[in-house]
């Protein structure tokens, strides 16, 4: 029951973030919204490990966190050099 409530809360948050990604006036707005959405998706993966009672999803969450951090840093450095 609690998982359903938390999944709907995170779903509304991801919805607002996707709206900002669609209407964002500049390219950095879209990258900020992507970064926030990555953190939310990591939380969703951790909650899935609680729903399915399976420990392997925590490993997937760790790898997803590493990849999303690298993605944010690489996109930012690219924008900074491009100017």
């Amino acid at each position, binding site marked *: 029951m609690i998982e359903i409530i938390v999944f709907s809360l*995170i779903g509304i948050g991801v919805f607002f973030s996707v709206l900002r990604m669609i209407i964002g006036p*500049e390219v950095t707005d879209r990258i*900020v919204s992507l*970064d926030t959405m990555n953190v939310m998706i990591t939380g969703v993966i951790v909650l899935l490990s609680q729903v399915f009672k399976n420990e392997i999803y925590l490993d997937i969450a*760790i790898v997803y966190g590493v990849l999303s*951090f690298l993605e944010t840093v690489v996109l*930012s450095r690219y924008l900074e050099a491009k100017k």
Partner: protein
Amino acid sequence: MKVIGDVLIIIGGIFYLLGGLGIFRMPDVFNRIQAGTKATTLGAFSLILGVGFLNPSWLLKSIILVIFMTITNPVGSSVLARASYLHGAKIAKLQKDDLKSLYEKEEMSQND
């Protein structure tokens, strides 16, 4: 143990919702970075610790994940803010820009 885990998970969900709302409502890029990153860092902290408390044998792995996210989220936010300033993002209601003279001086010293 179960009650603590449930309360922590619900707090995490509420902070995720607040982070998404801040991303949508704030006026310029830097305010959005503040709202999004701070709220979702606390949300991830609370939610992952809550799942760890619900299943005590996973507590070590969830603490590793919490430490990792606590380190990497501020670093990503700082890099994003620097990139959006250098890319020329507009700042709402700006009256005085202290960084501008600093970066111009740096560029001039690099050109010499």
